């Protein structure tokens, strides 16, 4: 910055800037996840706090460690490591042993983010890579789900399968047997009274946080809506056991990590396209892969792998969608 002889600053335009900063965005998104976290604690008890805290500590420690080793400026205050930590925590079963959150957090922040150049240069969503690593490495621990129990004090000795797991292995009949009728099934899924990762179960809590982000214009609805719509249509067409167009899209929308993934993971700035039309394409791709994995692959849930695969395509999508430039010649070359 140059200063002139009167002590005034001389620098280039524009001279003013919006109030938005990277730390403000990261911390706001983190705060918007609190409803989901509270519901996780409500159903899965103190262990939910324990797992999430380990993820956050692991993420921030990894960021500090790798940046220190690399001789870079420490950027813990920007909140992005905290956000990755809380997202990773919300994507874990409450029953995992302590080392899984810690190691996954290192894979997420230390490797996926920092070793690729830090915030802005990671190809994949760090929290999802952390979770994918854990799922493949500790498959049993990562697919052992506590029975949700109300009122913050659950000990969760008993384990069970997730609704998607039941649907995949034993079918719709068994699912209705567990939850009563369809209406109470929907209701339980909506409020989150079901087995699953500790922050993914309560649709209401996730939607409250997401609505706040949309209101603040931190995320747009292009990716989440195209993602959800594709899953719904795919589930309706291919999800039924008795032929095409007999599937139940609502169960697919309300279960698994879809809401959390669509609103919080797929919309990760760094790893999604920036062009509007590209974002819709990205959402459709995520939805297609999710339903493909849910219905045809070995795992009951496919949101995580779907988003990670689409992450690879984000730069290609941006490159080929492009924006429509003002006054550009409309005729073909």
């Amino acid at each position, binding site marked *: 910055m140059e200063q002139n002889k009167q002590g*005034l600053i001389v620098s280039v335009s*524009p001279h003013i800037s919006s109030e*938005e900063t990277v730390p403000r965005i990261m911390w706001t998104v983190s705060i918007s996840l609190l409803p989901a976290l509270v519901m996780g604690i409500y159903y899965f008890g103190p262990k939910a706090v324990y797992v999430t805290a380990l993820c956050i500590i692991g993420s921030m420690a990894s960021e500090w460690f790798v940046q220190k080793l690399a001789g870079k400026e420490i950027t813990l205050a920007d909140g992005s490591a905290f956000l990755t930590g809380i997202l990773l925590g919300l994507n874990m079963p409450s029953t995992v042993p302590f080392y899984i959150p810690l190691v996954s957090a290192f894979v997420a922040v230390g490797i996926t983010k920092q070793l690729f150049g830090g915030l802005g240069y990671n190809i994949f969503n760090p929290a999802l890579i952390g979770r994918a690593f854990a799922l493949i490495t500790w498959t049993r621990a990562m697919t052992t789900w506590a029975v949700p129990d109300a009122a913050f004090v659950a000990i969760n000795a008993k384990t069970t399968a997730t609704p998607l797991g039941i649907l995949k292995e034993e079918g719709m009949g068994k699912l209705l047997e567990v939850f009563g009728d369809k209406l109470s099934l929907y209701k339980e899924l909506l409020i989150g009274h079901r087995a699953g990762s500790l922050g993914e179960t309560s649709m209401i809590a996730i939607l409250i946080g997401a609505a706040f982000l949309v209101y603040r214009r931190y995320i747009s609805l292009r990716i989440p809506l195209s993602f959800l719509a594709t899953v719904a249509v795919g589930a309706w067409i291919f999800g039924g056991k008795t032929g095409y167009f007999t599937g139940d899209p609502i169960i697919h929308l309300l279960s698994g990590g879809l809401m959390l993934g669509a609103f919080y993971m797929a919309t990760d700035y760094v790893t999604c396209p920036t062009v509007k039309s590209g974002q819709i394409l990205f959402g459709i791709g995520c939805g297609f892969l999710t339903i493909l994995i849910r219905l045809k692959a070995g795992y009951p849930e496919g949101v995580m792998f779907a988003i990670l695969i689409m992450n690879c395509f984000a730069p290609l999508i941006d490159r080929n969608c492009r*924006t429509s*430039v*003002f006054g550009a010649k409309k005729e073909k070359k």
Partner: protein
Amino acid sequence: MSTFTLGGIHPPEHKELACNAAIEVCKLPQRAVVPLSQHIGAPCKSLIEVGQRVLAGQLIGNPEGFISAPVHASIAGKVTGIEAFPSPMGRMVPSIVIENDKSDEWTPLEGDPNYMERSADVLKGRIKASGIVGMGGATFPTVVKLSPPKEKKIDAVIINGAECEPYLTADHRLMLENPKEIVEGLKILMKVLELNKGYIGIEENKPDAIEKMKDAASGDKNIEVWTLVTKYPQGAEKMLIKSILNREVPAGGLPMDVGVVVQNCGTAYAIYEACCLGKPLMERVVSVTGPGITSPKNLRARIGTPVSQLIETCGGLKSGAVKVISGGPMMGFAIYDLDTPVTKGTSGIVALEDKDIVHRTKFNHCIRCGRCVEACPMGLMPLMLSVYSEKGLYTDAKDYHLFDCFECGSCTYVCPSKRPIVQQIRLAKTMVKP
């Protein structure tokens, strides 16, 4: 209400600081520094010698070349030097220094109350001889805009009263206080261009100006006053044409490619003065405003008055002022020297305090949030231009329509990583050929 379709931003307007301050005449300077180049294009050649006495309004610089505009003395007095002085844009420009002899003696002005009866060529000649340039800040010689090549058929002229830059209120006050004269200026433009459609575009945050201009134009059904959405950069030529006529100036093209001429309302006022009063462009309205100014005002100042005198007239700088800008805070230039003179393109002097400005010497990685893509009124991808420029890949930046950027700064305003995107784009533009 109409607006342009792509992008745009809503920075805090801060017009309230000066929009109620009626235009005051600024005291004549003790010494006026009149740059020989106050316009885009070739500089003028000095017509006078050091030591000679000049009168206010006297022609002192003759244009050399088609894209140029003559320069007139703004005060009466003795020429004490012809030397290089810093211009508001930071360059050193040969300037004529006039020492005020307190007489304020003018060259005789040839007034012509029946100017509307003159032919288009006569009026155009007066606009040319009066040294009128675009007074919104770009300072493109007006007569050049009024002389389109034969194959370009002009069918509309737009008076730009958008004044979309935060803080600035000079055009606002001029529309409030001299609406009739601006409309007369527009009529002259319509006559010169031989067309019968004139528009005046004003952002909706100036309802009083819209009303005044509508009143002033009510007698002529060929003139329409349009209320525009308050959205930066509404006052950019391309945006204004899109908002009012829904025409898109082609990439790399000029307004005349879609049959339009755009003139700032201050320019229209100057055209009226030139044609009716025979008065050359030697003074203009300048908003002196911003949180760093003790009592913000709108001043009618002679060209060549030092910025420091304008600031003193407004009670001086507050102790917290750290940056003084010529023009608005989005596209204006930080002033290097407070003795810099007011020129034909100085629409405002804005003083900002530390809390108002952004320091971009240290910036972060692009997080690809896409805010810049959403903000760009030209539909570009500023993040790609920024990253390519940062990495020195200027040719790749060109593939992302580098040269369609007109540097409005919207992308840079919204960037949460505080990246100097516009500056990176400027750098890239100098490194590759269009």
